[in-house]
């Protein structure tokens, strides 16, 4: 399976468009949003400055982009082209394909997280303890697995022309609801109530808790765990259905 991960990675690194959107775009967006903010304004109810707050949002957004986009469109396309069938004629175990896709997406998502951190620290002077930087990287990276599973599920659910709009709607919906682009405190109350339960909201909240020197909230971890179980279960079911049909 390592050979497949290697080849998936080689391919991802060659794809400049994908690299730009998953690795550099979050940092560019961070600078656009946090660029004009001074480093003392606090985001309501968090005790964090806007650059600190947006740093976690954009790192989460970058990881989300890499794993969701990396999985859903490619899997749908390769199901259609028959590459998935061809791989089933090799000794590679069935789930090996999905694991290889997720692993290579995770390798791409790591630099996107780190680059946002580097830009935030150097350009906007965000300062955290060493353990916080490490914990943030680990939490955001590990949390992205939830969305990798969602990407796999979408990849096996939709095909052809449908996959891109479905991915985009999910992607923008989750990004906005999770407060990755702007703090959810700016939303009307009813939307805030919904947003609280979005997996992306819980995802970003992990990082914010670490920035506040707290342990992540049990509720956020529970929300992420439930969505992870849901997405993985859905992906496994859709995968099996597709395998029987093919």
């Amino acid at each position: 399976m390592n050979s497949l991960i290697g080849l998936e990675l080689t391919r991802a690194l060659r794809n400049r468009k994908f690299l730009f959107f998953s690795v550099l775009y979050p940092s560019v967006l961070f600078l656009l949003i946090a660029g004009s903010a001074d480093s003392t304004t606090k985001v309501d109810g968090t005790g964090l400055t806007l650059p600190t707050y947006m740093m976690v949002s954009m790192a989460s957004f970058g990881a989300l982009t890499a794993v969701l986009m990396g999985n859903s469109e490619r899997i749908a396309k390769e199901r259609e082209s028959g590459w998935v069938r061809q791989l089933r004629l090799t000794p590679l175990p069935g789930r090996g394909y999905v694991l290889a896709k997720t692993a290579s997406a995770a390798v791409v998502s790591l630099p996107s997280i780190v680059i946002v951190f580097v830009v935030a620290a150097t350009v906007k002077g965000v300062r955290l303890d060493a353990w916080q930087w490490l914990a943030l990287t680990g939490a955001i990276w590990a949390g992205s697995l939830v969305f990798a599973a969602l990407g796999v599920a979408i990849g096996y659910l939709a095909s052809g022309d449908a996959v891109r709009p479905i991915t985009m709607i999910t992607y923008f919906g989750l990004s906005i609801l999770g407060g990755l682009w702007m703090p959810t405190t700016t939303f009307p109350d009813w939307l805030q109530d919904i947003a609280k339960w979005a997996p992306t909201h819980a995802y970003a909240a992990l990082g914010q808790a670490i920035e506040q020197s707290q342990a992540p909230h049990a509720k956020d971890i529970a929300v992420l765990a439930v969505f992870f179980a849901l997405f993985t279960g859905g992906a496994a079911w859709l995968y099996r259905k597709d395998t029987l049909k093919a």
Partner: protein
Amino acid sequence: MTTTASVVAFDQVSKTYGTVRAVDGLSLTLHPGETVALLGPNGAGKSTTLDLLLGLKQPDSGTVRVFGTGPREAIVAGRVGAMLQSGGLMDEVMVAELVRLACALHPKPYPANDVLARAGIAQIADRKVNKLSGGQAQRVRFALATAGDSDLIVLDEPTTGMDVTTRQAFWATMREQADQGRTVLFATHYLEEADAIADRVLVLHRGRLLADGTAAEIKAKAGARRISFDLRDSIDEAALRALPFLTHLDVSGHTVRIQSADADATVHALYGLGAYPRNLEVAGLGLEQAFVAITEAEEARTR
């Protein structure tokens, strides 16, 4: 594993899609070292048969064994290499990278450079997979199917998209595989391919095995000979139809075409009718006509 064991064994295998019986009570056995052609018109069940053989589909009833185990186990053990018409290729990677992947995944791999050379794609090794012509892509698929020392090679319409010269070159490569003692099963609709390469031909029609034998036996089964001649006088069709060993009669204008299981007896009886046939020709039936005759007879029987 003993040498007499079967390579592939289908026992009463059926597969239905909705109301269509794609494969209908199919039983067949492939033996080590055979080169077998799977022939049949579109919709005969060739692709479904191969999918069942490779474990891509599960039969509704009956059993499929490959080297005495389930298809998936045989693939995991590296005993089966296959290329499917519907098998896509990973895009945005180079040919050599893809072949190296196939070698890495195979339990008994050959060196990637050998695989590339043998499939005749060494000179396009650094091309992007998505920039290949149809024939080149077929060769890459072939390379993936022969990346390791498999005992059975399964090919679904392997020469689709190739021109005549590359097709012939391809079959030379294919024959090398068979000469190394491998069992080769290929589905095709090019009958001359089956005739020239296979030492056994399976004719599939509506999911059932219609004929199983050498190309020569299949031709014999269809009525061995074709007889054609012109008659100047009026033609008594009833009398012609009553000729011995006649299997097929076609009268158009003054020209009569007959297929016969025993041409000598038929021609002898023809003169016995007092007829004076001109431009008489007796020729062997090509596999193509044999194939048409067999499937037509079956259509007529089941109608």
